[in-house]
């Protein structure tokens, strides 16, 4: 039940389960005031709760008042001790002082450990920035309280009640005071460290929460379309020339043609070519059937002029070449121009068989050389 002291509701049934359904024990505890009953819920009485926490040293709440109480008690007891003449009573006061001094050392240390843990827990787990900040500020206040108490206690031992510590010649008291001083010094060092941490945490939270707050305001104005008029964003951005604002530049450099012709780029070209897949499938065009007409054989007759025959006939004629060709009966119709061509062809083909004279004759617009067969004339 003590374990669940933090939760607000502890049902009576749970307690019954623990006690094997023995309601008598619960009613006894309630009647003695150890447990308070509230409807179906029960809770441990505050006084006992404090007692358990003190004994088990698990208190989470840092209680500076408790140290303060002890401190006052020591002071009073010292006063009684100095005023009292009876040895027996003097000793009882001395005993009280010793036990309280021991307690102060222990409690102070305990408190510092708790404080440190609380600070860290607050920083790590508290979700709300504002509450977190307030809590940390509170811890800081507690810390300075503890610090004050330590100083006061030290002063008490070393300065204020010097008479008491000098007169009460007790070996145990001396050891206790020395121990206490050592504990206090250690505590002070711990406190300084904790204080540093608190300040650091507070600063972190402040800067973070300040940013969140700023972001919220900026976002609000932006969503209301008021930001450009109501803040300095325009001026700010005019001066912000970071490249991050610009479009991603691309540098379209042309490929080096020489490089492309090289063997190295062949692989790359092949790769890229492989990637280039158009969805359009090339349709192979099928040619039409070749029509039967084209396949039919067709003969075209051309009458060829046999030059050899012309020469042989010429050799037998005794006429000169031009005249001979003009009157020669070719196997087909031959025009005047063609006849002249044949004349020229005859001369160039059978130059050796002909005798080309220096004499010229005219026929219409053409001047031609007189040509005779060679062998016939000689």
């Amino acid at each position, binding site marked *: 039940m003590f374990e669940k002291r933090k939760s607000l509701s502890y049902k009576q049934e749970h307690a019954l389960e623990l006690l094997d359904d023995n309601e008598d024990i619960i009613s006894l505890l309630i009647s003695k005031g150890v447990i308070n009953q509230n409807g179906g819920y029960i809770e441990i009485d505050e006084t006992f709760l404090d007692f358990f926490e003190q004994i088990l040293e698990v208190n989470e709440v840092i209680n500076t008042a408790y140290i303060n109480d002890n401190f006052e008690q020591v002071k009073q007891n010292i006063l009684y001790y100095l005023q009292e003449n009876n040895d027996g009573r003097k000793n009882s006061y001395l005993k009280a002082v010793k036990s309280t001094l021991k307690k102060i050392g222990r409690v102070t240390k305990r408190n510092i450990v708790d404080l440190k843990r609380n600070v860290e827990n607050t920083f790590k787990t508290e979700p709300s920035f504002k509450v977190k900040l307030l809590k940390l500020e509170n811890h800081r206040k507690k810390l300075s309280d503890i610090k004050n108490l330590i100083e006061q206690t030290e002063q008490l031992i070393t300065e204020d009640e010097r008479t008491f510590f000098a007169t009460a010649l007790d070996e145990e008291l001396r050891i206790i005071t020395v121990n206490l001083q050592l504990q206090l010094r250690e505590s002070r060092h711990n406190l300084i460290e904790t204080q540093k941490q608190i300040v650091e945490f507070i600063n972190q939270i402040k800067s973070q929460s300040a940013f969140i707050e700023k972001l919220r305001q900026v976002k609000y104005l932006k969503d209301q379309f008021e930001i450009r008029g109501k803040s300095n964003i325009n001026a*700010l951005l005019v001066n912000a*020339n970071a490249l991050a604002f610009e479009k991603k530049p691309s540098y379209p450099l042309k490929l080096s043609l020489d490089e492309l012709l090289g063997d190295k780029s062949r692989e790359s070209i092949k790769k890229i070519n492989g990637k280039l897949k158009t969805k359009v499938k090339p349709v192979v065009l099928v040619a039409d059937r070749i029509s039967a007409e084209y396949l039919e054989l067709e003969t075209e007759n051309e009458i060829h002029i046999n030059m050899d025959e012309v020469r042989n006939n010429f050799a037998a004629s005794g006429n000169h070449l031009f005249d001979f060709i003009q009157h020669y009966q070719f196997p087909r119709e031959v025009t005047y121009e063609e006849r002249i061509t044949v004349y020229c062809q005859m001369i160039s083909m059978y130059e050796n068989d002909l005798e080309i004279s220096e004499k010229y004759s005219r026929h219409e617009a053409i001047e031609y050389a007189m040509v005779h067969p060679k062998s016939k004339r000689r």
Partner: protein
Amino acid sequence: MKVPKQTAEIFDILSKGQFICSNSSNERTRKLFDIIAEEDNFDLLHDYFTAINFILEEGNEYYYLSRLESKADLERKIETAFRWIDIVDFFKSFDTAFTSGFRFQPSDILVKLNVDAVLKDKLDGLKRWSKKDSYKESIEHIITKILCAEGFTELENEILNEYKVLSSFHYLENLISSINIPEDTQDEIPE
């Protein structure tokens, strides 16, 4: 002037509007950061880039380039800044600790969307930039195509699909922090 031999690589990254961050998970980028941060190198590179009209700027654990006169016009800058404000706002609502060094998975955001109506609402607002209908695609688009592409986050763990916020995120935070809202306007803004 003897500039470090990695200058071309540095310029290659920075000239694209990217950042070189000290907490990048890419070893090469961290190395480049160390090179710029080395004594004398910053001044050398600064002078070198100034000669080609760029200014090497130093931020909190990151470097970037700016110009004397921006090529982007004011409208474009406002547009970009608005986009950043929306995005930073969204991720800060997702987790107030979302800043340099923060690690996250897109699925975390998706899970939180189901229980946080405000976050959902903000993501709907971001559709303007992501142009995606499904929440999943929208988040992915914002993370990969905006935050990662502009160098504010990077994929650190491919297996877990875990992203890391880089120190360049401070740039966005600083930009937003430096927007000054007059006090009487601040009072108009509801809590």
